[in-house]
């Protein structure tokens, strides 16, 4: 039985990888080759030239730092703030508790594109238009809803007794938050950080709306200029996207042991 399951999982994985393998092969070809022979054809010649070209034309070296300037503070901000709000929603009974929970969830319900102009106007009025700060503040704020929702649900898996015993031991709420709450939701934190990094790093709509200067743009905006009005050099664009996926993959590799490997956390012991 286990055998069968494994076979299915492996078959599925290979199937799942197929489009990505296709993308990778595409990135090694030239558009002329594809136009002349079709994209599922055997490549006439392969090279990594597109990667170098995407790097150069997409100005990746210039924009990469910007992407990190935007993403990393946003992730730290949203994780810190939403763990605080999640903790408050789980630990304390107060009148507005349910309402605030719904409000955080409601923030996820609006298709975010429609917020484009109001958020633009807001940052314009605050004098933050065309700054990284605007993007950081927006991403942090916008993801708080989702992160609070996820962390709040994960916090509920922590037995109340653990908190209570700490209270009896005389610990203050912030200490409990730091010493007990946070460590126990580490897998959720890691999963969230991975997902959020993927989203914020790959975002370019908000960068488009809140930035105008060339020197502030993130990598995604740079790479999207590889797409033309009429002509699209697909292998170039694909290699650019694969390049842009590398930091996300690095983060994934770095964090995956917190939520993927076969370690069980201490919530159930003792």
């Amino acid at each position, binding site marked *: 039985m286990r055998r069968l399951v494994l076979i299915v999982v492996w078959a*599925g*994985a290979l199937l*799942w*990888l197929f*489009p*990505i393998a*296709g993308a990778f092969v*595409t990135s090694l070809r030239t558009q002329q080759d594809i136009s002349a022979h079709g*994209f*599922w054809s055997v490549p006439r010649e392969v090279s990594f030239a597109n990667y170098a070209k995407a790097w150069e034309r997409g100005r990746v070296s210039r924009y990469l730092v910007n992407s990190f300037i935007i993403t990393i503070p946003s992730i730290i901000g949203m994780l810190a*703030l*939403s763990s605080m*709000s999640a903790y*408050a929603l789980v630990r304390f009974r107060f009148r507005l*508790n349910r309402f*605030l*929970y719904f409000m955080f*969830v409601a923030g*996820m*319900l*609006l*298709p975010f*594109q*429609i*917020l*484009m*102009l*109001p958020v633009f106007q*807001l940052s314009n009025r605050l004098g933050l238009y065309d700054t990284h700060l605007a993007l950081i*503040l927006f991403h942090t*704020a*916008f993801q*708080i809803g*989702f992160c609070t929702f*996820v962390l709040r*649900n*994960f916090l*509920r*898996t922590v037995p109340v007794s653990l908190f*209570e015993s700490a209270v009896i031991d005389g610990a203050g*709420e912030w200490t409990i938050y730091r010493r007990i709450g946070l460590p126990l939701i580490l*897998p959720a934190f890691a*999963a969230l950080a*991975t*997902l959020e990094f*993927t989203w914020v790093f790959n975002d370019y709509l908000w960068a488009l709306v809140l930035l105008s200067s060339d020197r502030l743009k993130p990598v995604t905006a740079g790479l999207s200029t590889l*797409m033309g009005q009429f002509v699209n050099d697909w292998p170039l664009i*694909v290699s650019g*996207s*694969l390049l*842009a*996926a590398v930091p996300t*993959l690095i983060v*994934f590799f770095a964090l*995956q042991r917190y939520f993927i*490997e*076969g370690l*069980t*956390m201490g919530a*159930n012991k003792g």
Partner: protein
Amino acid sequence: MRHHPLAPLSFLLLPLGLYAVWVVFPTFATMAMAFTNWDGISPTSEWVGLANFERLFADRVFWMSLGNNLRWVAVFITIPTALGLSLALALNRNVRFDRFLKIAYYLPMVLAFVVVGLMWAWIYHPRQGLLNNTLFHLYGFAQSLGFDVNPLAARRIGWLGDPDLAMGSIIAAATWQHVGYVMILYLAGLKTVNTELLDAGQVDGASPWQLFRFITFPQLAPVTTIVLVITVIQSLRAFDLVYVMTRGGPFNSSNVLANFMYIEAFMNYNMGYGAAIAVVLFLISVGFIAVYLYRVVQQEER
């Protein structure tokens, strides 16, 4: 649980403050826009009351998009969620090369939408795409076995170009991406499951299915809440793949509300109308989610 009355405030002040300014306030601004005829660029606009909404409910495109979104929900809450959960369960033990397998399923999430759209468009390409050519060979094989099928018909299947197949084709690509997402969440959730109970259950001779059904799955309830809520929201808010693959075509057969809204608001300079679509989308989502969450929260407090 007695606590200092100001304790919640100290935790909530900063997150709520930021959230209120950058999310809540623009949301209300958007809702107000729905009652105007603003085009998104002129300095002035007029109040039109419910005119946008009246127009919306008479708009064929709206109903088509809504239907597509609901189809998306139906598919998403069944297939990728079940698959993601199964994968998480299968890969939670020490399987060899489990990291490779998990990454294989997660990679679709990491890829930019443009590339996902491109790859799938090539899979769906009627004349040269992978799908039709595979079918072509399958039909040929069936034909040689004596069945009455014409292999050439395989190359005429339009997929993204066929109004009846376009939406399904896009949803399939979206499912490909979503499975990894659900898997990640359940993998994290499985870390919180109490293994002692599982050990005890095994000692008592319970079957794997019983262990899952009575011990693991109930403990995963919070994660399941997350997964269901997120899945429904993503189905209702779906935009990127539709925009990249067909832009809602052919003639709106694969249109979804978020794409419809985007095109109206940003390409057709109908910001007011677009905002109305967003408001309706919001209310529909609230309808789905609020009812569900309310019940969950009530259960939790029991």
